Protein backbone atom coordinates (compact mmCIF):
# COMPACT_ATOMS: atom_id res chain seq x y z
CA UNK A 1 0.00 0.00 0.00
CA UNK A 2 1.24 3.42 -0.91
CA UNK A 3 0.81 5.24 2.42
CA UNK A 4 1.32 8.65 0.85
CA UNK A 5 -1.89 8.18 -1.13
CA UNK A 6 -3.92 5.87 1.07
CA UNK A 7 -4.30 6.69 4.74
CA UNK A 8 -7.31 7.35 7.00
CA UNK A 9 -6.98 11.13 6.66
CA UNK A 10 -6.83 10.91 2.87
CA UNK A 11 -9.87 8.61 2.84
CA UNK A 12 -11.75 10.99 5.14
CA UNK A 13 -11.07 14.03 2.96
CA UNK A 14 -11.77 11.99 -0.19
CA UNK A 15 -15.17 11.02 1.21
CA UNK A 16 -16.20 14.64 1.78
CA UNK A 17 -14.75 15.72 -1.56
CA UNK A 18 -16.70 12.99 -3.32
CA UNK A 19 -19.88 14.01 -1.48
CA UNK A 20 -19.28 17.62 -2.45
CA UNK A 21 -18.65 16.64 -6.06
CA UNK A 22 -21.82 14.59 -6.49
CA UNK A 23 -23.95 17.21 -4.77
CA UNK A 24 -22.46 20.14 -6.70
CA UNK A 25 -25.52 20.40 -8.90
CA UNK A 26 -27.91 20.34 -5.94
CA UNK A 27 -25.88 23.03 -4.17
CA UNK A 28 -25.77 25.13 -7.35
CA UNK A 29 -29.53 24.72 -7.80
CA UNK A 30 -30.16 25.79 -4.19
CA UNK A 31 -28.04 28.91 -4.71
CA UNK A 32 -29.63 29.79 -8.05
CA UNK A 33 -33.22 29.01 -6.99
CA UNK A 34 -33.90 32.28 -5.11
CA UNK A 35 -32.20 34.25 -7.89
CA UNK A 36 -34.38 32.73 -10.58
CA UNK A 37 -37.61 32.82 -8.56
CA UNK A 38 -37.51 36.30 -7.03
CA UNK A 39 -39.54 39.10 -8.62
CA UNK A 40 -39.79 37.42 -11.99
CA UNK A 41 -42.53 38.92 -14.17
CA UNK A 42 -43.86 36.38 -16.62
CA UNK A 43 -45.72 37.20 -19.84
CA UNK A 44 -48.94 36.15 -18.12
CA UNK A 45 -48.24 38.66 -15.33
CA UNK A 46 -47.44 41.42 -17.82
CA UNK A 47 -50.68 40.88 -19.73
CA UNK A 48 -52.77 40.38 -16.60
CA UNK A 49 -53.72 44.06 -16.16
CA UNK A 50 -54.95 44.43 -19.75
CA UNK A 51 -56.74 41.10 -19.57
CA UNK A 52 -58.57 42.02 -16.35
CA UNK A 53 -59.54 45.39 -17.81
CA UNK A 54 -61.06 43.71 -20.88
CA UNK A 55 -62.85 41.22 -18.63
CA UNK A 56 -64.34 44.04 -16.53
CA UNK A 57 -65.53 45.87 -19.67
CA UNK A 58 -67.19 42.73 -21.01
CA UNK A 59 -68.91 42.02 -17.72
CA UNK A 60 -70.13 45.61 -17.49
CA UNK A 61 -71.52 45.50 -21.05
CA UNK A 62 -73.24 42.20 -20.37
CA UNK A 63 -74.85 43.51 -17.18
CA UNK A 64 -76.06 46.66 -18.91
CA UNK A 65 -77.58 44.78 -21.85
CA UNK A 66 -79.28 42.14 -19.75
CA UNK A 67 -83.07 42.58 -19.80
CA UNK A 68 -84.04 40.82 -16.58
CA UNK A 69 -87.80 41.21 -17.09
CA UNK A 70 -87.71 39.66 -20.59
CA UNK A 71 -85.59 36.83 -19.30
CA UNK A 72 -87.99 36.08 -16.44
CA UNK A 73 -90.93 36.13 -18.88
CA UNK A 74 -89.13 33.78 -21.28
CA UNK A 75 -88.34 31.38 -18.45
CA UNK A 76 -91.95 31.39 -17.28
CA UNK A 77 -93.16 30.63 -20.83
CA UNK A 78 -90.61 27.88 -21.16
CA UNK A 79 -91.92 26.24 -17.99
CA UNK A 80 -95.47 26.23 -19.39
CA UNK A 81 -94.50 24.75 -22.77
CA UNK A 82 -94.74 20.93 -23.24
CA UNK A 83 -91.50 19.18 -22.31
CA UNK A 84 -91.21 17.44 -25.69
CA UNK A 85 -92.31 19.98 -28.24
CA UNK A 86 -92.13 18.69 -31.82
CA UNK A 87 -89.12 20.00 -33.60
CA UNK A 88 -88.89 20.59 -37.35
CA UNK A 89 -88.41 17.27 -39.13
CA UNK A 90 -89.43 15.08 -36.17
CA UNK A 91 -91.77 12.15 -36.80
CA UNK A 92 -94.56 10.76 -34.70
CA UNK A 93 -93.76 7.56 -32.84
CA UNK A 94 -95.86 4.74 -34.34
CA UNK A 95 -98.48 3.36 -31.96
CA UNK A 96 -98.00 -0.09 -30.52
CA UNK A 97 -99.63 -3.00 -32.29
CA UNK A 98 -102.72 -4.25 -30.43
CA UNK A 99 -102.15 -7.44 -28.36
CA UNK A 100 -98.40 -7.19 -28.72
CA UNK A 101 -96.18 -8.04 -25.72
CA UNK A 102 -95.35 -4.37 -25.23
CA UNK A 103 -99.00 -3.46 -25.27
CA UNK A 104 -99.88 -5.70 -22.34
CA UNK A 105 -100.82 -4.02 -19.13
CA UNK A 106 -97.94 -4.55 -16.72
CA UNK A 107 -100.48 -5.43 -14.03
CA UNK A 108 -101.61 -8.41 -16.12
CA UNK A 109 -98.08 -9.66 -16.74
CA UNK A 110 -96.90 -12.65 -14.74
CA UNK A 111 -94.84 -11.88 -11.68
CA UNK A 112 -91.14 -12.27 -12.20
CA UNK A 113 -89.61 -15.53 -10.91
CA UNK A 114 -93.01 -17.27 -10.89
Amino acid sequence: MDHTRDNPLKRFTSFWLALLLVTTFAIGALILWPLSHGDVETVADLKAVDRLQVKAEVQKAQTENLNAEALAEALANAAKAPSQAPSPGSMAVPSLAPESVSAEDPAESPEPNN
Partner: protein
Amino acid sequence: MSETPSTTDIHDIELRSSIDRSLRHPVMFFFASGSIWLVLGILLGFIASAKKHAPEFLDCISWIDAGKVDAAHLSALVYGWGCQAAFGMIIWLMARLTRKECTASGIILVAGHLWNLIIMVGIVTILAGQGSGVTLMAFPSYIWVSLLVVYLMITLWSLVQFQVRDAGHVYVSQWYLLAGLLWFPWILGSAIFFVFASEGHPLMAAAVAAWFKSGVFLLFLLPTALASAYYLAPKVTGRPVYSYNVALFGFWALAFLGPWAGFQRLMGAPIPQFLPYAGAAAMVLILIPALAVGLNILKTIQDQKELAAQSPSLRFTTSGIVLFIIFGVLSFGLNTVPAIKMTQFSYTGYGLDILAIYGVFSLCAFGAIYFIVPRVTRREWLSSRFITWHFFLSLYAVASIVCCAIIGGIIQGQGMEDLSQPFGTMAERSSSYGWGITIAWAFLLVANFVFCLHLLLMWARLGRRSSHPTLLQNHHPESPHGPEGEIDNIGSVNA
Protein backbone atom coordinates in the same frame (compact mmCIF):
# COMPACT_ATOMS: atom_id res chain seq x y z
CA MET B 1 0.58 -23.74 -15.94
CA SER B 2 2.87 -25.81 -13.81
CA GLU B 3 5.31 -22.96 -13.16
CA THR B 4 5.72 -22.04 -9.51
CA PRO B 5 4.27 -18.60 -8.92
CA SER B 6 6.74 -15.94 -7.82
CA THR B 7 6.38 -14.02 -4.55
CA THR B 8 4.99 -11.03 -6.46
CA ASP B 9 2.42 -13.27 -8.13
CA ILE B 10 1.38 -14.77 -4.82
CA HIS B 11 1.10 -11.30 -3.30
CA ASP B 12 -0.98 -10.22 -6.29
CA ILE B 13 -3.26 -13.24 -6.01
CA GLU B 14 -3.65 -12.62 -2.28
CA LEU B 15 -4.56 -8.99 -2.90
CA ARG B 16 -7.16 -9.88 -5.53
CA SER B 17 -8.55 -12.58 -3.29
CA SER B 18 -8.84 -10.18 -0.34
CA ILE B 19 -10.59 -7.60 -2.56
CA ASP B 20 -13.06 -10.25 -3.71
CA ARG B 21 -13.64 -11.37 -0.12
CA SER B 22 -14.28 -7.80 1.03
CA LEU B 23 -17.00 -7.40 -1.61
CA ARG B 24 -18.52 -10.86 -1.60
CA HIS B 25 -21.74 -10.03 0.23
CA PRO B 26 -22.68 -6.69 -1.35
CA VAL B 27 -21.80 -7.81 -4.88
CA MET B 28 -23.71 -11.08 -4.60
CA PHE B 29 -26.62 -9.27 -2.96
CA PHE B 30 -26.87 -6.77 -5.82
CA PHE B 31 -26.58 -9.43 -8.52
CA ALA B 32 -29.01 -11.86 -6.90
CA SER B 33 -31.68 -9.31 -5.98
CA GLY B 34 -31.21 -7.66 -9.36
CA SER B 35 -31.83 -10.96 -11.12
CA ILE B 36 -35.06 -11.47 -9.14
CA TRP B 37 -36.22 -8.01 -10.19
CA LEU B 38 -35.26 -8.89 -13.74
CA VAL B 39 -37.55 -11.92 -13.72
CA LEU B 40 -40.33 -9.84 -12.17
CA GLY B 41 -39.78 -7.01 -14.65
CA ILE B 42 -39.93 -9.43 -17.59
CA LEU B 43 -43.11 -11.02 -16.21
CA LEU B 44 -44.68 -7.56 -15.97
CA GLY B 45 -43.37 -6.85 -19.49
CA PHE B 46 -45.10 -9.98 -20.76
CA ILE B 47 -48.40 -8.88 -19.20
CA ALA B 48 -47.98 -5.29 -20.43
CA SER B 49 -47.21 -6.48 -23.95
CA ALA B 50 -50.18 -8.88 -24.00
CA LYS B 51 -52.51 -6.09 -22.89
CA LYS B 52 -51.45 -3.97 -25.85
CA HIS B 53 -52.98 -6.36 -28.41
CA ALA B 54 -55.42 -8.26 -26.15
CA PRO B 55 -56.84 -5.71 -23.67
CA GLU B 56 -59.11 -8.30 -22.07
CA PHE B 57 -56.08 -10.31 -20.87
CA LEU B 58 -56.23 -10.47 -17.03
CA ASP B 59 -58.68 -7.56 -17.03
CA CYS B 60 -60.27 -8.96 -13.87
CA ILE B 61 -57.27 -7.74 -11.82
CA SER B 62 -57.35 -3.97 -11.51
CA TRP B 63 -53.81 -3.88 -10.03
CA ILE B 64 -52.34 -4.77 -13.37
CA ASP B 65 -54.24 -2.42 -15.65
CA ALA B 66 -52.37 -1.60 -18.85
CA GLY B 67 -51.07 1.80 -17.71
CA LYS B 68 -49.92 0.59 -14.30
CA VAL B 69 -48.27 -2.63 -15.45
CA ASP B 70 -46.34 -0.87 -18.20
CA ALA B 71 -44.89 1.66 -15.75
CA ALA B 72 -44.13 -1.07 -13.19
CA HIS B 73 -42.45 -3.20 -15.89
CA LEU B 74 -40.02 -0.49 -16.98
CA SER B 75 -39.32 0.62 -13.39
CA ALA B 76 -38.56 -2.94 -12.25
CA LEU B 77 -36.34 -3.48 -15.28
CA VAL B 78 -34.34 -0.25 -14.90
CA TYR B 79 -34.18 0.39 -11.15
CA GLY B 80 -34.65 -3.15 -9.84
CA TRP B 81 -32.38 -4.95 -12.28
CA GLY B 82 -30.36 -2.36 -14.24
CA CYS B 83 -29.20 -0.17 -11.38
CA GLN B 84 -28.45 -3.06 -9.05
CA ALA B 85 -26.46 -4.96 -11.67
CA ALA B 86 -24.60 -1.70 -12.36
CA PHE B 87 -23.88 -1.21 -8.63
CA GLY B 88 -22.43 -4.71 -8.36
CA MET B 89 -20.25 -4.13 -11.42
CA ILE B 90 -19.12 -0.66 -10.33
CA ILE B 91 -18.05 -1.54 -6.81
CA TRP B 92 -16.24 -4.71 -7.91
CA LEU B 93 -14.54 -3.25 -10.98
CA MET B 94 -13.45 -0.09 -9.17
CA ALA B 95 -12.01 -2.09 -6.27
CA ARG B 96 -10.14 -4.43 -8.62
CA LEU B 97 -8.82 -1.63 -10.85
CA THR B 98 -7.70 0.56 -7.97
CA ARG B 99 -6.42 -2.53 -6.15
CA LYS B 100 -8.10 -1.44 -2.95
CA GLU B 101 -10.19 -3.54 -0.61
CA CYS B 102 -13.64 -2.24 0.19
CA THR B 103 -13.81 -0.98 3.76
CA ALA B 104 -17.49 -0.11 3.70
CA SER B 105 -19.12 -3.33 2.57
CA GLY B 106 -21.46 -3.27 5.60
CA ILE B 107 -22.80 0.18 4.70
CA ILE B 108 -23.14 -0.83 1.04
CA LEU B 109 -25.04 -3.96 2.03
CA VAL B 110 -27.44 -1.98 4.25
CA ALA B 111 -27.89 0.54 1.42
CA GLY B 112 -28.57 -2.36 -0.96
CA HIS B 113 -31.38 -3.58 1.29
CA LEU B 114 -32.77 -0.05 1.49
CA TRP B 115 -32.64 0.29 -2.30
CA ASN B 116 -34.66 -2.92 -2.69
CA LEU B 117 -37.15 -1.81 -0.06
CA ILE B 118 -37.65 1.54 -1.79
CA ILE B 119 -38.06 -0.08 -5.21
CA MET B 120 -40.59 -2.52 -3.75
CA VAL B 121 -42.59 0.33 -2.20
CA GLY B 122 -42.38 2.20 -5.51
CA ILE B 123 -43.63 -0.73 -7.58
CA VAL B 124 -46.49 -1.45 -5.14
CA THR B 125 -47.45 2.24 -5.22
CA ILE B 126 -47.52 2.22 -9.03
CA LEU B 127 -49.67 -0.92 -9.07
CA ALA B 128 -51.97 0.64 -6.46
CA GLY B 129 -52.54 3.54 -8.82
CA GLN B 130 -50.58 6.09 -6.80
CA GLY B 131 -47.69 6.51 -9.25
CA SER B 132 -46.64 9.90 -10.60
CA GLY B 133 -47.49 8.97 -14.20
CA VAL B 134 -44.15 10.33 -15.47
CA THR B 135 -42.36 7.94 -17.84
CA LEU B 136 -39.55 6.09 -16.07
CA MET B 137 -40.13 8.34 -13.04
CA ALA B 138 -43.41 6.65 -12.20
CA PHE B 139 -42.60 6.26 -8.50
CA PRO B 140 -44.21 8.91 -6.31
CA SER B 141 -42.13 12.06 -5.76
CA TYR B 142 -41.09 11.17 -2.18
CA ILE B 143 -39.36 7.96 -3.40
CA TRP B 144 -36.83 9.76 -5.57
CA VAL B 145 -34.93 11.72 -2.95
CA SER B 146 -34.48 8.58 -0.84
CA LEU B 147 -33.22 6.70 -3.92
CA LEU B 148 -30.63 9.42 -4.51
CA VAL B 149 -29.43 9.26 -0.89
CA VAL B 150 -29.15 5.46 -1.01
CA TYR B 151 -27.30 5.74 -4.33
CA LEU B 152 -24.71 7.93 -2.62
CA MET B 153 -24.41 5.44 0.24
CA ILE B 154 -23.58 2.72 -2.30
CA THR B 155 -21.25 4.52 -4.67
CA LEU B 156 -19.34 7.15 -2.68
CA TRP B 157 -16.87 4.50 -1.53
CA SER B 158 -15.87 3.76 -5.11
CA LEU B 159 -15.03 7.44 -5.61
CA VAL B 160 -12.94 7.32 -2.42
CA GLN B 161 -11.16 4.19 -3.69
CA PHE B 162 -10.36 5.98 -6.94
CA GLN B 163 -8.98 8.97 -5.07
CA VAL B 164 -6.67 6.89 -2.84
CA ARG B 165 -5.55 4.52 -5.62
CA ASP B 166 -1.87 3.81 -6.04
CA ALA B 167 -0.20 6.23 -8.42
CA GLY B 168 -0.14 4.99 -11.97
CA HIS B 169 -2.20 4.37 -15.03
CA VAL B 170 -5.94 5.08 -15.06
CA TYR B 171 -7.64 2.37 -17.09
CA VAL B 172 -10.26 3.02 -19.78
CA SER B 173 -12.78 1.15 -17.64
CA GLN B 174 -12.15 3.62 -14.83
CA TRP B 175 -13.01 6.59 -17.05
CA TYR B 176 -16.40 5.10 -17.79
CA LEU B 177 -16.99 4.03 -14.18
CA LEU B 178 -16.11 7.45 -12.85
CA ALA B 179 -18.24 9.20 -15.47
CA GLY B 180 -21.25 6.98 -14.78
CA LEU B 181 -20.82 7.46 -11.02
CA LEU B 182 -20.88 11.26 -11.37
CA TRP B 183 -23.43 11.58 -14.17
CA PHE B 184 -26.18 9.58 -12.47
CA PRO B 185 -26.63 11.87 -9.42
CA TRP B 186 -26.53 14.85 -11.81
CA ILE B 187 -29.33 13.57 -14.07
CA LEU B 188 -31.38 12.15 -11.20
CA GLY B 189 -30.99 15.33 -9.13
CA SER B 190 -31.93 17.50 -12.12
CA ALA B 191 -34.94 15.35 -12.93
CA ILE B 192 -36.19 15.35 -9.32
CA PHE B 193 -35.75 19.11 -9.17
CA PHE B 194 -37.41 20.01 -12.47
CA VAL B 195 -40.10 17.33 -12.54
CA PHE B 196 -41.24 17.26 -8.91
CA ALA B 197 -39.84 20.25 -7.02
CA SER B 198 -39.78 23.09 -9.52
CA GLU B 199 -42.86 25.17 -10.31
CA GLY B 200 -41.95 25.30 -13.99
CA HIS B 201 -44.23 24.61 -16.91
CA PRO B 202 -45.60 21.02 -16.95
CA LEU B 203 -44.52 20.59 -20.58
CA MET B 204 -40.92 21.32 -19.66
CA ALA B 205 -41.27 18.83 -16.80
CA ALA B 206 -42.31 16.24 -19.43
CA ALA B 207 -39.31 17.24 -21.56
CA VAL B 208 -36.94 16.87 -18.59
CA ALA B 209 -38.44 13.45 -17.82
CA ALA B 210 -37.78 12.40 -21.44
CA TRP B 211 -34.21 13.67 -21.12
CA PHE B 212 -33.78 11.73 -17.87
CA LYS B 213 -35.10 8.54 -19.48
CA SER B 214 -32.50 8.83 -22.17
CA GLY B 215 -29.80 9.80 -19.66
CA VAL B 216 -30.36 6.75 -17.46
CA PHE B 217 -29.18 4.60 -20.35
CA LEU B 218 -26.64 6.82 -22.10
CA LEU B 219 -25.08 8.33 -18.98
CA PHE B 220 -25.28 5.57 -16.42
CA LEU B 221 -26.12 2.07 -17.66
CA LEU B 222 -24.14 2.36 -20.90
CA PRO B 223 -20.91 3.70 -19.31
CA THR B 224 -21.07 0.88 -16.76
CA ALA B 225 -21.57 -1.71 -19.51
CA LEU B 226 -18.68 -0.24 -21.52
CA ALA B 227 -16.45 -0.19 -18.43
CA SER B 228 -17.13 -3.90 -18.04
CA ALA B 229 -16.46 -4.56 -21.74
CA TYR B 230 -13.18 -2.61 -21.63
CA TYR B 231 -12.18 -4.65 -18.57
CA LEU B 232 -13.22 -8.10 -19.76
CA ALA B 233 -12.07 -8.02 -23.39
CA PRO B 234 -8.37 -7.47 -22.57
CA LYS B 235 -8.56 -9.52 -19.37
CA VAL B 236 -9.97 -12.68 -20.95
CA THR B 237 -7.99 -12.48 -24.21
CA GLY B 238 -4.77 -11.44 -22.49
CA ARG B 239 -4.27 -8.63 -25.03
CA PRO B 240 -4.21 -4.88 -24.50
CA VAL B 241 -7.04 -2.67 -25.75
CA TYR B 242 -6.67 -2.28 -29.54
CA SER B 243 -6.38 1.50 -29.56
CA TYR B 244 -6.09 3.86 -26.61
CA ASN B 245 -6.82 6.87 -28.83
CA VAL B 246 -10.00 5.37 -30.24
CA ALA B 247 -11.08 4.55 -26.67
CA LEU B 248 -10.44 8.15 -25.67
CA PHE B 249 -12.37 9.43 -28.68
CA GLY B 250 -15.31 7.08 -28.00
CA PHE B 251 -15.46 8.17 -24.37
CA TRP B 252 -15.49 11.90 -25.10
CA ALA B 253 -17.94 11.43 -27.98
CA LEU B 254 -20.37 9.77 -25.57
CA ALA B 255 -19.69 12.40 -22.90
CA PHE B 256 -20.43 15.17 -25.39
CA LEU B 257 -23.48 13.65 -27.10
CA GLY B 258 -25.14 11.77 -24.24
CA PRO B 259 -26.41 14.79 -22.26
CA TRP B 260 -28.15 16.27 -25.34
CA ALA B 261 -30.27 13.25 -26.15
CA GLY B 262 -33.84 12.64 -25.02
CA PHE B 263 -35.79 15.75 -25.97
CA GLN B 264 -36.54 14.32 -29.43
CA ARG B 265 -39.33 12.32 -27.81
CA LEU B 266 -41.28 15.59 -27.58
CA MET B 267 -40.86 16.51 -31.23
CA GLY B 268 -43.84 18.70 -32.20
CA ALA B 269 -44.70 19.63 -28.62
CA PRO B 270 -44.81 23.34 -27.74
CA ILE B 271 -41.37 23.49 -26.16
CA PRO B 272 -38.40 25.49 -27.47
CA GLN B 273 -37.91 23.96 -30.89
CA PHE B 274 -34.14 23.65 -30.73
CA LEU B 275 -34.45 21.08 -27.93
CA PRO B 276 -36.10 18.21 -29.89
CA TYR B 277 -33.83 18.85 -32.86
CA ALA B 278 -30.72 18.89 -30.67
CA GLY B 279 -31.92 15.64 -29.05
CA ALA B 280 -32.53 14.03 -32.45
CA ALA B 281 -29.10 15.15 -33.69
CA ALA B 282 -27.43 13.71 -30.58
CA MET B 283 -29.21 10.38 -31.03
CA VAL B 284 -28.21 10.27 -34.70
CA LEU B 285 -24.60 10.96 -33.76
CA ILE B 286 -24.57 8.24 -31.06
CA LEU B 287 -23.50 6.03 -33.95
CA ILE B 288 -20.02 7.62 -33.62
CA PRO B 289 -19.21 6.39 -30.08
CA ALA B 290 -20.98 3.11 -30.91
CA LEU B 291 -18.63 2.53 -33.85
CA ALA B 292 -15.58 3.68 -31.90
CA VAL B 293 -16.26 1.40 -28.94
CA GLY B 294 -17.42 -1.47 -31.15
CA LEU B 295 -14.33 -1.27 -33.35
CA ASN B 296 -12.03 -1.12 -30.34
CA ILE B 297 -13.54 -4.05 -28.45
CA LEU B 298 -14.05 -6.25 -31.51
CA LYS B 299 -10.50 -5.56 -32.73
CA THR B 300 -9.19 -6.46 -29.28
CA ILE B 301 -10.77 -9.91 -29.49
CA GLN B 302 -10.45 -10.30 -33.26
CA ASP B 303 -7.91 -13.11 -33.22
CA GLN B 304 -9.53 -14.90 -30.32
CA LYS B 305 -12.80 -16.03 -31.89
CA GLU B 306 -12.57 -19.48 -30.32
CA LEU B 307 -12.06 -17.89 -26.93
CA ALA B 308 -15.10 -15.67 -27.44
CA ALA B 309 -17.14 -18.78 -28.19
CA GLN B 310 -15.85 -20.66 -25.14
CA SER B 311 -15.93 -17.99 -22.47
CA PRO B 312 -19.44 -17.06 -21.26
CA SER B 313 -18.19 -13.64 -20.15
CA LEU B 314 -16.66 -12.82 -23.50
CA ARG B 315 -19.54 -14.24 -25.50
CA PHE B 316 -22.14 -12.14 -23.65
CA THR B 317 -19.93 -9.04 -23.70
CA THR B 318 -19.18 -9.34 -27.42
CA SER B 319 -22.88 -9.76 -28.16
CA GLY B 320 -23.67 -6.69 -26.06
CA ILE B 321 -21.12 -4.64 -27.97
CA VAL B 322 -22.40 -5.84 -31.36
CA LEU B 323 -25.90 -4.86 -30.24
CA PHE B 324 -24.53 -1.45 -29.22
CA ILE B 325 -23.37 -0.93 -32.81
CA ILE B 326 -26.82 -2.03 -34.02
CA PHE B 327 -28.35 0.40 -31.50
CA GLY B 328 -26.20 3.17 -33.00
CA VAL B 329 -27.26 2.29 -36.56
CA LEU B 330 -30.97 2.12 -35.64
CA SER B 331 -30.65 5.32 -33.67
CA PHE B 332 -29.12 6.95 -36.74
CA GLY B 333 -32.01 5.83 -38.95
CA LEU B 334 -34.94 6.30 -36.58
CA ASN B 335 -34.09 9.74 -35.21
CA THR B 336 -34.21 11.67 -38.46
CA VAL B 337 -37.13 14.09 -38.62
CA PRO B 338 -39.28 12.10 -41.13
CA ALA B 339 -38.68 8.88 -39.18
CA ILE B 340 -39.60 10.51 -35.87
CA LYS B 341 -42.75 11.93 -37.45
CA MET B 342 -43.77 8.46 -38.55
CA THR B 343 -42.76 6.43 -35.48
CA GLN B 344 -43.18 8.85 -32.58
CA PHE B 345 -46.39 7.30 -31.22
CA SER B 346 -45.69 3.69 -32.11
CA TYR B 347 -43.94 0.57 -30.81
CA THR B 348 -40.61 1.73 -32.29
CA GLY B 349 -39.40 3.77 -29.31
CA TYR B 350 -40.17 0.85 -27.02
CA GLY B 351 -38.11 -1.43 -29.27
CA LEU B 352 -35.10 0.90 -29.04
CA ASP B 353 -35.52 1.14 -25.24
CA ILE B 354 -35.50 -2.65 -24.88
CA LEU B 355 -32.52 -2.94 -27.23
CA ALA B 356 -30.66 -0.47 -25.00
CA ILE B 357 -31.64 -1.87 -21.61
CA TYR B 358 -31.62 -5.58 -22.39
CA GLY B 359 -29.62 -5.93 -25.59
CA VAL B 360 -26.71 -3.64 -24.77
CA PHE B 361 -26.60 -3.16 -21.02
CA SER B 362 -27.93 -6.49 -19.78
CA LEU B 363 -25.83 -8.66 -22.09
CA CYS B 364 -22.68 -6.82 -20.97
CA ALA B 365 -23.87 -7.14 -17.35
CA PHE B 366 -24.40 -10.89 -17.77
CA GLY B 367 -20.87 -11.12 -19.15
CA ALA B 368 -19.57 -9.33 -16.05
CA ILE B 369 -21.67 -11.48 -13.71
CA TYR B 370 -20.40 -14.71 -15.30
CA PHE B 371 -16.88 -13.39 -14.70
CA ILE B 372 -17.26 -11.88 -11.23
CA VAL B 373 -19.44 -14.39 -9.41
CA PRO B 374 -16.97 -17.33 -9.48
CA ARG B 375 -14.30 -14.99 -8.09
CA VAL B 376 -16.32 -13.68 -5.17
CA THR B 377 -17.97 -17.01 -4.28
CA ARG B 378 -14.86 -19.12 -4.99
CA ARG B 379 -17.12 -21.58 -6.82
CA GLU B 380 -17.54 -22.25 -10.54
CA TRP B 381 -20.83 -22.07 -12.43
CA LEU B 382 -22.78 -25.29 -12.12
CA SER B 383 -23.94 -25.82 -15.66
CA SER B 384 -22.62 -24.72 -19.02
CA ARG B 385 -25.96 -25.84 -20.48
CA PHE B 386 -27.83 -23.29 -18.34
CA ILE B 387 -25.48 -20.57 -19.59
CA THR B 388 -25.95 -21.65 -23.20
CA TRP B 389 -29.74 -21.61 -22.83
CA HIS B 390 -29.56 -18.22 -21.20
CA PHE B 391 -27.43 -16.87 -24.03
CA PHE B 392 -29.40 -18.18 -27.01
CA LEU B 393 -32.85 -17.56 -25.54
CA SER B 394 -31.83 -14.02 -24.56
CA LEU B 395 -30.39 -13.27 -27.96
CA TYR B 396 -33.37 -14.75 -29.82
CA ALA B 397 -35.89 -12.98 -27.60
CA VAL B 398 -34.27 -9.55 -27.67
CA ALA B 399 -33.82 -9.77 -31.45
CA SER B 400 -37.50 -10.72 -31.83
CA ILE B 401 -38.70 -7.91 -29.57
CA VAL B 402 -36.60 -5.32 -31.38
CA CYS B 403 -37.51 -6.52 -34.90
CA CYS B 404 -41.24 -6.80 -34.11
CA ALA B 405 -41.31 -3.44 -32.32
CA ILE B 406 -39.46 -1.56 -35.03
CA ILE B 407 -41.20 -3.12 -38.05
CA GLY B 408 -44.57 -3.08 -36.26
CA GLY B 409 -43.93 0.49 -35.17
CA ILE B 410 -43.21 1.64 -38.71
CA ILE B 411 -46.41 -0.06 -39.93
CA GLN B 412 -48.31 1.56 -37.04
CA GLY B 413 -46.86 4.92 -38.00
CA GLN B 414 -47.83 4.48 -41.65
CA GLY B 415 -51.36 3.61 -40.53
CA MET B 416 -51.58 6.74 -38.40
CA GLU B 417 -50.35 8.93 -41.24
CA ASP B 418 -52.82 7.38 -43.70
CA LEU B 419 -55.91 9.49 -43.04
CA SER B 420 -57.96 7.61 -45.68
CA GLN B 421 -58.09 4.59 -43.34
CA PRO B 422 -59.95 4.34 -40.03
CA PHE B 423 -57.78 4.33 -36.88
CA GLY B 424 -58.68 0.69 -36.16
CA THR B 425 -56.93 -0.46 -39.33
CA MET B 426 -53.63 0.71 -37.91
CA ALA B 427 -54.21 -1.31 -34.72
CA GLU B 428 -55.15 -4.40 -36.75
CA ARG B 429 -52.01 -4.09 -38.90
CA SER B 430 -49.69 -3.92 -35.88
CA SER B 431 -51.51 -6.53 -33.79
CA SER B 432 -49.50 -9.48 -35.14
CA TYR B 433 -46.26 -7.69 -34.23
CA GLY B 434 -47.64 -7.21 -30.73
CA TRP B 435 -48.16 -10.96 -30.53
CA GLY B 436 -44.56 -11.46 -31.62
CA ILE B 437 -43.32 -9.18 -28.83
CA THR B 438 -45.41 -11.00 -26.22
CA ILE B 439 -44.11 -14.40 -27.28
CA ALA B 440 -40.54 -13.05 -27.21
CA TRP B 441 -41.08 -11.82 -23.63
CA ALA B 442 -42.13 -15.38 -22.72
CA PHE B 443 -38.82 -16.69 -24.12
CA LEU B 444 -36.94 -14.00 -22.21
CA LEU B 445 -38.77 -15.01 -19.04
CA VAL B 446 -37.61 -18.61 -19.41
CA ALA B 447 -34.02 -17.48 -20.15
CA ASN B 448 -33.82 -15.28 -17.09
CA PHE B 449 -35.60 -17.68 -14.80
CA VAL B 450 -32.82 -20.15 -15.61
CA PHE B 451 -30.22 -17.41 -15.02
CA CYS B 452 -31.79 -16.33 -11.73
CA LEU B 453 -31.94 -19.92 -10.47
CA HIS B 454 -28.32 -20.51 -11.48
CA LEU B 455 -27.21 -17.31 -9.75
CA LEU B 456 -29.14 -18.07 -6.55
CA LEU B 457 -27.49 -21.50 -6.40
CA MET B 458 -24.11 -19.77 -6.74
CA TRP B 459 -25.06 -17.31 -3.99
CA ALA B 460 -25.86 -20.28 -1.75
CA ARG B 461 -22.31 -21.43 -2.58
CA LEU B 462 -23.59 -24.56 -4.27
CA GLY B 463 -21.38 -24.00 -7.31
CA ARG B 464 -18.73 -26.46 -8.42
CA ARG B 465 -15.68 -26.72 -6.19
CA SER B 466 -13.21 -26.52 -9.02
CA SER B 467 -10.51 -24.24 -10.26
CA HIS B 468 -11.51 -24.98 -13.87
CA PRO B 469 -13.90 -22.33 -15.17
CA THR B 470 -17.20 -23.39 -16.68
CA LEU B 471 -16.75 -22.97 -20.43
CA LEU B 472 -19.31 -23.32 -23.18
CA GLN B 473 -17.20 -25.81 -25.16
CA ASN B 474 -15.25 -28.43 -23.25
CA HIS B 475 -12.57 -29.33 -25.80
CA HIS B 476 -10.31 -26.41 -24.96
CA PRO B 477 -6.55 -26.75 -24.76
CA GLU B 478 -6.17 -24.19 -22.00
CA SER B 479 -8.31 -21.93 -19.89
CA PRO B 480 -9.15 -18.50 -21.29
CA HIS B 481 -9.50 -17.18 -17.74
CA GLY B 482 -5.81 -17.12 -16.95
CA PRO B 483 -3.80 -19.70 -15.04
CA GLU B 484 -5.99 -22.43 -13.66
CA GLY B 485 -5.86 -23.36 -10.04
CA GLU B 486 -5.65 -19.74 -8.92
CA ILE B 487 -8.49 -20.12 -6.47
CA ASP B 488 -7.08 -23.34 -5.02
CA ASN B 489 -3.59 -21.89 -4.88
CA ILE B 490 -4.66 -18.91 -2.89
CA GLY B 491 -6.62 -21.23 -0.63
CA SER B 492 -3.46 -23.16 0.13
CA VAL B 493 -1.44 -19.95 0.50
CA ASN B 494 -3.87 -18.67 3.09
CA ALA B 495 -3.98 -22.01 4.78
